[in-house]
């Protein structure tokens, strides 16, 4: 085998928004960069994002500000967030959005020619910069063409990483990959590695995520010694498609509710008025998901076990202009005209708030030379992510990780040395599935894993369900050791799935373990045996590492404490911007009266 490694300063695993933004930042610093992805360029999961990018530009609501966005994000995350990340994010997001326009993105406009912003669940103001309901496409297409025009960045599409290499000093040094089209193995050596490989929504049965979202970067880094945090926090988006079966789980953007869509149960009751009279349909995602779930459990579900969502009162012209993709999606795939009819929705696995534990400013993990950003990293969203805060996350922390990795790579002396034996070991491991006779079918193991996780660690969990889940998972993992592959090395999805499933099994174990450890309900984590928030539990992030014996070690990290000036914001029941707005209004009324 040819084991001549390809050398780069910075190796980036992932070509979603986070990976591409990181690549641009690193290249700007003069680094030579390689970007890897499981799919072709421009097809990463980010392309599917619909609703928008949350940034306090204040184009429509001048009272919006970064401290208001900070307030909303911390509150929605139930204070498990790393406040430093939230602070950086809310301050830098507006610049990152504008920068996209400089690079060619074209956002929807206000009448006076500025970037339009739309309301979204639990945001105090109209805040999401958007392009109809295909904002992710605009973001990734813009970065794609920028990358194509950037020297010093080599893109390796359909090149998939299976292992992270460390050097003798325990620093990240490279990766083992296979190339999908011809099955060739590629070895990369690099001074710094960035994991930007997205989330792991495919662990669950009903999911809005694509086949790529199997958490490879998180699992691979975890095996190499990196820390995972908040793994119990999995976001179930309230509105996934329900019918027909082939589209189950595909996302119905929150934009539908943002633009005025209303939720009803089978008795035509607008049930959100009961669960959150203040914010109603635009309550936080964890609240709306649980509400739909409860309605269905109480026997008030729709024919296929969901709730009705209705936007038809907005009229065809408006709907087709603001939500063209949704309109098409339902017409083509479900034979349903949303400008005239209501439709069924139910919660779908959407986003993983947990992930690699990183330093706020740089995205550095506990492994020297290893960085993480985007959905792979934990900390920004805490116990629940606000809509629109992911796309902004990719830009803000993708850039920061890229800058930090490039600076580190420039500092690091010499070339990164890879050990021949670890390369050889990985080569053998990757080829092993072909040698197993009458082994397990990876598609089947995957389906069973998804069933297991949805049953035991879904939207609702308990100590018993999680312990049972871990037991079942252990047995499934044993069978999974015998997953086999047919056919050859050339573009063989069944073979590739073996590694995806291995990664998902690892992360599933971390989800179950973290969920069992958190003895309270908080954000997306809902325990029936501990139905309330517990202030003591809320002071810790649950961190997991993998021991050399393959066992998970759990440890607590205190949630970073806000300085007094930030903490004081939360003495008020409303966000700073809303407070200022109300004060101003009452002053105006006062002076009118005078």
């Amino acid at each position, binding site marked *: 085998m040819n084991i001549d490694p390809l050398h780069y300063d910075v190796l980036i695993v992932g070509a979603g928004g986070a990976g591409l933004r990181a690549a641009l930042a690193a290249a700007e610093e003069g680094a030579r960069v390689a970007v890897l992805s499981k799919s072709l360029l421009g097809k990463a999961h980010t392309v599917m994002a619909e609703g928008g990018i949350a940034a306090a530009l204040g184009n429509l609501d001048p009272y919006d500000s970064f401290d208001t966005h900070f307030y909303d994000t911390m509150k929605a995350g139930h204070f498990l967030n790393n406040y430093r990340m939230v602070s950086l994010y809310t301050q830098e997001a507006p610049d990152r959005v504008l920068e996209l326009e400089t690079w060619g993105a074209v956002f929807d406009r206000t009448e006076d020619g500025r970037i339009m912003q739309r309301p979204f669940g639990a945001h105090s103001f109209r805040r999401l910069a958007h392009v109809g309901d295909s904002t992710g496409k605009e973001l990734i297409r813009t970065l794609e063409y920028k990358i194509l025009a950037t020297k010093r960045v080599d893109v390796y599409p359909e090149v998939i990483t299976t292992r992270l290499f460390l050097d003798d000093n325990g620093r990240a040094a490279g990766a083992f990959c296979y190339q999908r089209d011809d099955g060739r193995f590629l070895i990369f050596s690099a001074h710094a590695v960035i994991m930007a490989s997205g989330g792991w929504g495919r662990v669950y049965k009903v999911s809005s995520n694509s086949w790529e979202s199997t958490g490879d970067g998180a699992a691979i880094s975890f095996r190499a010694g990196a820390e995972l945090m908040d793994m119990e926090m999995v976001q179930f988006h309230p509105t996934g498609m329900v019918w027909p079966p*082939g589209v189950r789980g595909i996302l119905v953007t929150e934009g539908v509710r943002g633009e005025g869509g209303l939720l009803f149960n089978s008795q035509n009751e607008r049930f959100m008025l009961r669960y959150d009279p203040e914010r109603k349909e635009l309550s936080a995602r964890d609240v709306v998901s649980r509400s739909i779930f409860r309605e269905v459990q109480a026997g008030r579900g729709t024919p296929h076990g969901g709730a009705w969502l209705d936007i038809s009162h907005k009229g065809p012209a408006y709907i087709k202009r603001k939500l063209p993709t949704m309109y098409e999606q339902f017409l083509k*795939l479900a034979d349903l005209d949303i400008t005239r009819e209501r439709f069924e929705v139910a919660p779908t696995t959407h986003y993983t708030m947990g992930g690699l534990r990183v330093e706020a400013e740089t995205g550095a993990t506990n492994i020297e030379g290893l960085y993480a950003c985007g959905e792979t990293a934990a900390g920004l969203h805490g116990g629940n992510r606000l809509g629109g805060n992911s796309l902004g996350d990719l830009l803000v922390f993708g850039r920061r990780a890229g800058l930090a990795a490039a600076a580190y790579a420039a500092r690091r002396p010499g070339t990164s040395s890879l050990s021949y034996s670890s390369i050889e070991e990985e080569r053998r491991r990757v080829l092993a599935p072909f040698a197993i006779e009458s082994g397990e079918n*990876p598609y*089947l193991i995957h389906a069973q894993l998804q069933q297991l996780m949805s049953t035991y660690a879904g939207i609702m969990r308990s100590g018993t369900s999680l312990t049972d889940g871990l037991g079942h998972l252990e047995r499934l993992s044993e069978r999974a050791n015998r997953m086999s592959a047919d056919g050859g090395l050339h573009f*063989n999805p069944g073979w590739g799935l073996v590694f995806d499933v291995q990664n998902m099994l690892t992360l599933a174990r971390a989800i179950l373990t973290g969920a069992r450890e958190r003895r309270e309900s908080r954000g997306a984590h809902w325990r029936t045996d501990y139905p309330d928030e517990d202030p003591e539990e809320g002071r810790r992030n649950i961190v997991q590492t993998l021991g050399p014996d393959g066992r998970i070690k759990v440890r607590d990290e205190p949630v970073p404490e806000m300085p007094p000036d930030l903490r004081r914001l939360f003495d008020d029941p409303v966000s700073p911007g809303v407070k200022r707005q109300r004060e101003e209004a009452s002053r105006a009324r006062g002076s009118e009266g005078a």
Partner: protein
Amino acid sequence: MTEDGFRGREVPIWIFRGDGLSGEERQYMVELSPGMVVLDAVLYVQQHEAPDLAVRWNCKAAHCGSCGAEVNGRPRLLCKTRMDDYMRRNEAVHVGPMKTFPVIRDLVPDIRKNYEIARRIPPFTPAHPAPFQLWPEDVERLKEFRRCIECFLCQDVCHVLRDHHRLDHYMGPRFMLKLAELDMHPLDTRDRTPYVRREGGVDWCNVTRCCSDVCPEAIAITENAIIPLKERVADRYFDPIRDFWRGRSRRPAPEPPEK
């Protein structure tokens, strides 16, 4: 959605298996379910019978443009093509890779050339950094072009590329669209007309409109992108009135220096 009568029925589907050198269609059986699309059927075969069946997909909702292929000879997104449409017409379903590009394996084509073209296009070059003042009407006009999901079905169907293999001379409809989008952006400062003509090869297009017909995003590629580009080229390089009086075919005027 009506629960259709096709549910649960086993039907055959023919799928191309092979690589660039050799291959053949093979028949598989799939169990129909309501609303099933051809991609569902292909993934069904992958799960039950042929784990190594190669196909690209990501979103399953016509957003990402990964699953372009040919169904009964017509370029289509597999995730947006319904099985029941064929069943209703009693038509057998044959799935093959896009023909204009070399085949890697089964339904997966080698479309690297498209990205090489994309890399050559001079990037957006605004007069100044954002914030920009852009009017809603400007944005509306650009939006159509920006709907493109880069499925390359238009490149697949265009006869200049498909039958005459002229990708070296003509960038193809997807990239005419891209050039039109850049050209019509109110803040772009580049003069792109010479590029459209020389590197882009817009003259090769003879306005058959096949690309617009297959575009899953219903972009009027020919009307709204290619014809305006052609007009700009004509305005710059041809003098139609003089040509008319001389009764000759149009001949290019000398190229003005690039701005």
